[in-house]
């Protein structure tokens, strides 16, 4: 399963670590990653991949939702195919 994860929030120490830790715990591999600060907003985009026999999309989403609550971040996870469909011919 391939997905795009986007993380937006007030900049603070350790956002990358928190997200990466959670993904490691879920055994989700980070394939690509970019991060920047827009004003004081932290934005990060991750391309992620994992074995969907081991972890369902819904379970991954629920885990990231918990993290977004506890870390006061907005975390979105969407399967990658939709981006390909819209942006590529």
């Amino acid at each position, binding site marked *: 399963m391939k997905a*795009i994860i*986007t993380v937006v929030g007030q900049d603070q120490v350790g956002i990358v670590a928190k997200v990466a830790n959670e993904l490691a715990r879920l055994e989700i591999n980070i394939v690509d990653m*970019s991060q920047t600060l827009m004003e004081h907003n932290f934005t990060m*985009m991750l*391309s992620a991949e994992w074995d969907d026999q081991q972890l369902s*999309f*819904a379970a991954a*989403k629920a885990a990231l939702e918990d993290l977004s609550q506890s870390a006061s971040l907005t975390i*979105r*996870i*969407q*399967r*990658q*195919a*939709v*981006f*390909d*469909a*819209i*942006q590529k011919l």
Partner: protein
Amino acid sequence: MESRSILETIQMVAEENLDIRTITMGISLFDCIDSDGERARQKIYDKITTSAKDLVKVADQIQEEYGIPIINKRISVTPIALIAAASGDQDYVAYAVTMERAAQALGVDLIGGFSALVQKGYQSGDRKLIASIPEALAATSRVCSSVNVGSTRAGINLDAIGEMGRVIKQIAADDPINCMSLVVFANAVDDNPFMAGAFHGVGEADRVINVGISGPGVVKRALEEVRGQAIDVVSEQIKKTAFKVTRMGQFVGTIAAERLNVPFGIVDLSLAPTPNEGDSVAEILEEIGLESVGAPGTTAALALLNDAVKKGGVMACEHVGGLSGAFIPVSEDAEMIRAVSAGRLNIEKLEAMTAVCSVGLDMIAVPGKTSAATISGMIADEAAIGMINNKTTAVRVIPATDQDVGGSVEFGGLFGRAPVMAVNESQPKAFIERGGHIPAPIHSFKN
């Protein structure tokens, strides 16, 4: 993939109200026809509830996984006038109630197809169905009804138009809100996923998935980037945006069809507004350069918008169908409501706009005193525009009982609020009462 493309896609959904307006499953009911009405209705209920049993579940799954809001899950069926005709039933309200029960059991938002096709004449089921519409709409909340009264090939059935004026008045006498579930068409299409006019055409496959997209907010935002530039640039920008929006419709439809194991029909390339801020077709026209929708130039701007949406969308998907174009439902578009309330947009201008956009006089409240003949006259005008221009036109008007210009009808939710609009008070009564049939137009010497 570039981060910019990812951000753009997310922004289209999160900030510009891009969504899939509807996934509609079309279901043929021809194999439910029975000489016993009771048995026919049982077959209808069973066929709808088994065919679409996973529709809502699959739509919700797609929304979760891909992060694209899917606003409505709907069903369209073969026009009931054709299905019920073989039964001896004298009125067809029970069929509408069966459709309602099936829709309720499935959790779908709306079900369309309480319909009759009378552009050339009536078969026995058509008369009974049309006579049943007021009671059917009063007895149900999810059932949508439509009647096709004219076409480019067949001409216009003036008898039916006279009758529909009376039916609309009758519905409004009970509750004006119910009028929003009835559309009177010319050149109705067989694969329309949008309500209230959706029905499953007679030439369609047994079951099919059709998708209607939305996204006026995305087009508006894209046009903000080309302010002051030539109109050709505007057209290009709309095409590019429509392409992306339509790709999403194609993508979602393909996945839904695959998961439901039903053939994928068409994407309806429409810009469908909602009363939410930033989700308005009128705002696009204003972004193009009109001080207000309704100003001289509105028809030209809308023609360009409508055409560019189609040009951009056609390449983005396998099969295009439905109504495909810009919708201009007054009550469902915040900026239209403002323009009408401020006296900058009237029915006559809306009528001109319907000659170049996807449908017709849509979600318009008229004074409660408006006569049945006047409503019939409005329908006749729209049908004539559709017949001559070879396009779909429709009328969905709401006579606001006991109200006059200045009042309004509240529909709630996505259906919004319709300010009561002034209607020309001179009467077309004698014209409508002539009845009969306006012959099909000549298809040459186009001027």
